[in-house]
């Protein structure tokens, strides 16, 4: 086999699948969103569907809602996940059950995470029952509606329950591979534990924190299940809104739906670009470490 062709041959099967389904799928969505949809006789390219979508208040509310959910849930996941990983590493009598148990949420699907939040925090869930038994509330409705609410608290908590252990798992793996001597040298030179964390460990785990942040951010921004199950109907999360529009039996509505999908995609890419910029700045700041 020709040496220079070898890597391309090895990448061929993956590329065929990804181009054939992923890229073709996105291209079809793009073309339809631009108003070219021969199946129903639309042949002219136009931006009017984007204009329509971008001036629709309901769409803008959905967009804001999805960005809010993604930011808060992934931000909190990172903070709690790093704290958890660091705590497991710090607590000396480790190697126990803790090291395995915290990974359980990773294998639980998001739909089940939504159920867990519903079981605990729904208005007939366990927490309101505890509060009722303690006499803090006197009826179900006094417990704040955390599910199906406009702030998306329930959705955020479901993502947090899935995201924090994921971050912890990634960070813990990196932390336990970092040579102990680095911390010891810093301690010897008079740094305190806090300084060791901020100036030695954090820069080293930063790349993996950022790349896993982007994974859970993109997921919570674009996933359908959780907001569909425990989210409000106004505003709907963007993927749910897209699905509702897609189910419209009038095919003339398709270009509009696809414009929503494409904006969803563009926004995701926008965030990735942003992430790469910050990543570059940070690595430059750390002297390319």
């Amino acid at each position, binding site marked *: 086999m020709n040496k220079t062709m070898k890597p391309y041959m090895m990448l061929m*099967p*993956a590329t065929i699948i990804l181009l054939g389904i992923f890229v073709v799928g996105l291209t079809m969505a793009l073309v339809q969103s631009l108003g070219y949809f021969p199946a129903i006789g639309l042949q002219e390219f136009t931006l009017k569907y984007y204009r329509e979508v971008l001036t629709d208040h309901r769409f803008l509310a959905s967009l804001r809602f999805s960005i809010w959910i993604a930011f808060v849930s992934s931000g909190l996941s990172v903070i709690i996940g790093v704290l958890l990983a660091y705590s497991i590493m710090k607590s000396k009598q480790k190697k126990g059950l*803790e090291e395995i148990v915290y990974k359980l949420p990773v294998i639980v699907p998001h739909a089940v995470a939504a159920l867990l939040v519903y079981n*605990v925090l729904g208005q007939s869930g366990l927490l309101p029952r505890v509060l009722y038994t303690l006499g803090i509330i006197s009826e179900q409705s006094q417990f704040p509606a955390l599910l199906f609410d406009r702030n998306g608290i329930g959705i955020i908590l479901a993502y947090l329950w899935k995201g924090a252990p994921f971050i912890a798992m990634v960070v813990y793996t990196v932390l336990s591979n970092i040579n102990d001597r680095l911390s010891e040298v810093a301690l010897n030179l008079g740094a305190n534990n806090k300084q060791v964390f901020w100036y030695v460990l954090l820069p080293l785990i930063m790349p993996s924190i950022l790349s896993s942040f982007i994974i859970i951010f993109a997921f919570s921004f674009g996933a*359908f299940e959780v907001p569909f199950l425990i989210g409000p109907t106004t505003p709907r999360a963007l993927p749910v809104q897209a699905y509702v529009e897609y189910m419209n039996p009038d095919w003339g509505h398709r270009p509009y739906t696809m414009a929503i999908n494409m904006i969803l995609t563009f926004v995701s890419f926008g965030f990735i670009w942003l992430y790469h910029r910050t990543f570059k700045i940070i690595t430059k700041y750390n002297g390319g470490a």
Partner: protein
Amino acid sequence: MKKKSNFFAIIMHITILLLIAPLLILVVWSFSRSWSWPYLLPQEFGLRGIMHVLHPSSRALKNLLFSIRLSMIVTIITLIISIPAAKALGVYNFKGKGFFKVLVLAPIIVPPVAVAMGIHLTFIRLGIANTFIGVVLVHLIPCLPYGIRILTNVFEIVGESMEQQAKVLGANPIQIFLHITLPLIAPGLISAGSLVFIVSFSQYFLTFLIGGGRIITFPMMMFPYIQSGDRMMASSYSLVFILATLVVLVIMEKAIKSYYGTKNYFYL
């Protein structure tokens, strides 16, 4: 010093408790018969929910096995495609490597909703919408990035030197692959396989849209119970789902390990 490590131990235990407690509540729900407001424990325990899922006459068990088969097929195809791709990305330098790296990771970032709705009509025209093959194909999209990503990291560490030695010693490519490459990447295969299986097995939206209600997986049977807030049934389905996942992962790990005799790893 002593106080500090206590502080972190407390944080660790509280966080883990908050992560695990909801799962315990789920278990209690699946074994309850009636548990109405405002009782803190079920008034009556029972097996109705679990029996409904496990009873041979319900379609649930058959469906569970079908889902496992589907996701195993997806996992195997993903691994077969990922191994050469990951080796190319992890070991070789070539023109356009950056492009392939982006292409391979892009499905993690782009919302699956957009891809699925975009490809749906094409699948219908090709006659693979509402079929097993169609669902397997569309599952590959969210699975491939994870398979390739993990195995690329493994190949970056493992390199190619061992394979070259074998080649110098006269091994043919098949021998090299079976006796050198596979054992070297076996730990990576376990973690990639586990993650890919989880991603495929918990897939709801892609199966739902491309399967068109013809291909019904276990998550699709579970979904309506969660949606309608039937805690007992939803919890029973979820419990069976989680246990089934664990069983498959343990078997997969054992199978790969016994074949290649790798050290003890607990990949999840």
